[in-house]
């Protein structure tokens, strides 16, 4: 079996969309394709039958309250849970026990606070997979420097431990770690949830710039509708285990499909879900 992440890792940032045969494969398939996926815990259905496609290079924000099913959707894509019905394809391959490990290396994953490991310095957090794959030290340093420039962090930050970093710095390091192997797909789970408003605003802007430059497929999960609009081209609103509306933000604002969507967008208080 081919080892796609190696092919990807060999390429540098600038050429990440142009490329060799392996990437061409991927470019043809959607980054994520959920078909008839359903998930329940016990008798409690958290995700009703759902079809969802994220094209290669596209960006989609999933917005919903807690319990809406958005976290479950993310876990399905990561292969952390298995669907009760339907199929999950990621980067053209079915997500399953045999493909899970290789696929995860082609997905960059960022969570609140970056999910950094407190026992490793920022640099070693970023380089974890590279060390595991046996990269040479010089190659690791070069790659870390590239990523550091991309997320605008100072060099001395990399030798600090997560406990010594600010929230915004942690988030940027988390993004560096997600981008290390140059994955075609990024998953972001409430990435900016723990930051104060100013840092948050600056980081949103930076993130949008980075996404545009890299041209990667991005799936973002957030409860913040404004953030969704800034970071993603399309927004999918989830409520009670279903995607109730999907489209560009402008469309949602102009034509909310349900009272819930209207309320979410800050519509008038008379409308209650």
């Amino acid at each position, binding site marked *: 079996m081919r080892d796609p992440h190696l092919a990807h890792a060999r390429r540098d940032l600038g050429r990440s969309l142009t490329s060799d045969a392996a990437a061409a494969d991927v470019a043809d398939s959607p980054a994520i394709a959920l078909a008839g996926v359903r998930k329940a815990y016990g008798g409690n259905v958290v995700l009703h039958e759902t079809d969802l496609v994220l094209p290669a290079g596209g960006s989609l924000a999933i917005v919903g309250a807690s319990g809406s099913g958005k976290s479950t959707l993310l876990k399905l894509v*990561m292969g952390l849970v298995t669907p009760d019905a339907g199929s999950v394809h990621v980067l053209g391959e079915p997500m399953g026990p045999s493909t899970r*490990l290789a*696929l*995860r290396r082609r997905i960059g994953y960022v969570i609140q*606070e970056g*999910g950094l*490991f407190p*026992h*490793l310095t920022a640099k070693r957090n970023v380089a*974890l997979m590279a060390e595991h794959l046996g990269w040479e030290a010089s190659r690791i340093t070069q790659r870390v420097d590239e990523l550091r420039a991309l997320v605008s962090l100072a060099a001395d930050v990399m030798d600090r431990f997560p406990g010594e970093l600010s929230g915004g710095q942690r988030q940027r390091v988390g993004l560096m770690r997600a981008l290390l192997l140059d994955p075609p797909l990024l998953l972001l789970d409430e990435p900016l949830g723990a930051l104060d408003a100013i840092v948050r605003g600056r980081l949103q802007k930076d993130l949008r710039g980075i996404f545009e430059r890299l041209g990667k497929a991005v799936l973002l999960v957030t409860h913040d509708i404004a953030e969704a609009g800034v970071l993603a081209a399309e927004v999918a609103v989830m409520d009670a285990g279903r995607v109730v509306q999907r489209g560009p933000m402008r469309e949602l604002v102009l034509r909310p499909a349900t009272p819930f969507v209207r309320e979410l967008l800050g519509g008038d208080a008379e409308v209650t879900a």
Partner: protein
Amino acid sequence: MRGALGMLVLLLLVLVGRGARAEGPRVVAGSKAFPESWILGEALRVLAAETGARAEHAKNLGGTEIALVALRSGAIDIYVEYTGTIDEVLLPAHTADGDRRQGLAAMGIAMSERLGFDDSYALAMRPEVAEKSGVRTIGDLARHPELRLGLTHEFLGRRDGFPGLAARYGLPQSGARGLQHELAYEAIRTGFIDVLDVYTTDAQIDRLGLVVLDDELHFFPRYDAVLLYRTDLPTRAPAAFVAMQRLVGAVSTKAISRANAAMVLDHANAETAATLILPGPARAAAAAPTVAEAIAHDTLKHVELVLASLAAAISVGVPIGVVASRSRRMGGALMTLASVVQTIPSLALLALLVPFLGIGARPAIVALLLYGLLPIARNTYTGLTTISPELARSAEALGLGWWATLRRISLPLASPAILAGVKTSAIINVGTATIAALVGADGLGNPILQGISLRDTGLILRGAVPAAALALAFELAFAGLERVVVPRGLRLS
């Protein structure tokens, strides 16, 4: 830094391996855990050493069964046993020397002629109680059910001990307490008991003025001292064997009682006391080690025991914790097992291990390993299962695979908890390692055990104080170790 825990284990194993260098052939005399046995063991050692043999003395074997296993396995070559004990414990139903020899030969053990003294069981009583109640014989006890008996555990359990005695004489006393032999003397001196079992050569009988009760029905068999030795000893170390044979027919009851008194009452060491029974011209005791040397030796051996068992407990306990964190059912079973082991009394655990592992450091290390397992396994489990869900998910999302995740992420994150468990285990083991003396392993348990037997507080402290100091030292050492083992990022704030 991630390999630090592994390095620690390696370091401990190296330290332990140091003690295990092999040397040439030797003669090992054994003794059980009472002064008379030490004196005889020491006498055997001195006699063998004089012939140029590399003679050693394995002291404090925890009972006849342990001594026998030691002899059969070759851990010791020779020790002094009593005919009555041989009959009851080793060879039921044999009463003639010919039968004894035959039965022993089947086990590769030979028996010498008698040494000359008889150390029988007897019952003895506080003089003032004897006077008041008019009890002079064992039979008289039947008329006084109110008398309180304090008997050794072995005497309570053996057929030729209390059960047989009570049946023969129709004794009504049912609530006999089991006591350690030397503590029983303390109990009778202070009036907590009225009657105890004694050996007829015990030094304390005279000193406390105890009345030895007449065995008018001749229930107690004779306990003539003889040498038991491996049948290969005469050919393997002929000169030493001939020298040790010089004790045969040469030790009178008076001589051994005097030697016992020298040790128990005058706090002489076994080496000095042994000179009182050695045949031929009076000998000067070989230069005994100074107190400081003895403490240093015992402490070093103690530390070796603790480190060896700790290394073993880490290499077994951490994997158990890991398995437990991955499978709740398997983990629960393993954790329960480790807890159950913890409740087994140390003497019982050692008695279970000796048939498989012989005597000396090995069974002691295994027992300590078992006692040290639970804190390490439980803390490993707790450390691994309390990693925050966000970090666990981040780790899984990387695509590292479970082993790399464990090594690079989970174990380092759990290292503070694991280290705390190792520390608990180490400190428990510093205390528990004193039990090693029961199976003839060196360590601080030896002076403590001898001190209890001799009622010599100084000797007890010679073991107890260094043990307490060691516990403190381990405590401090672990504070330092934390800086090495626990990654710096986890020590922030």
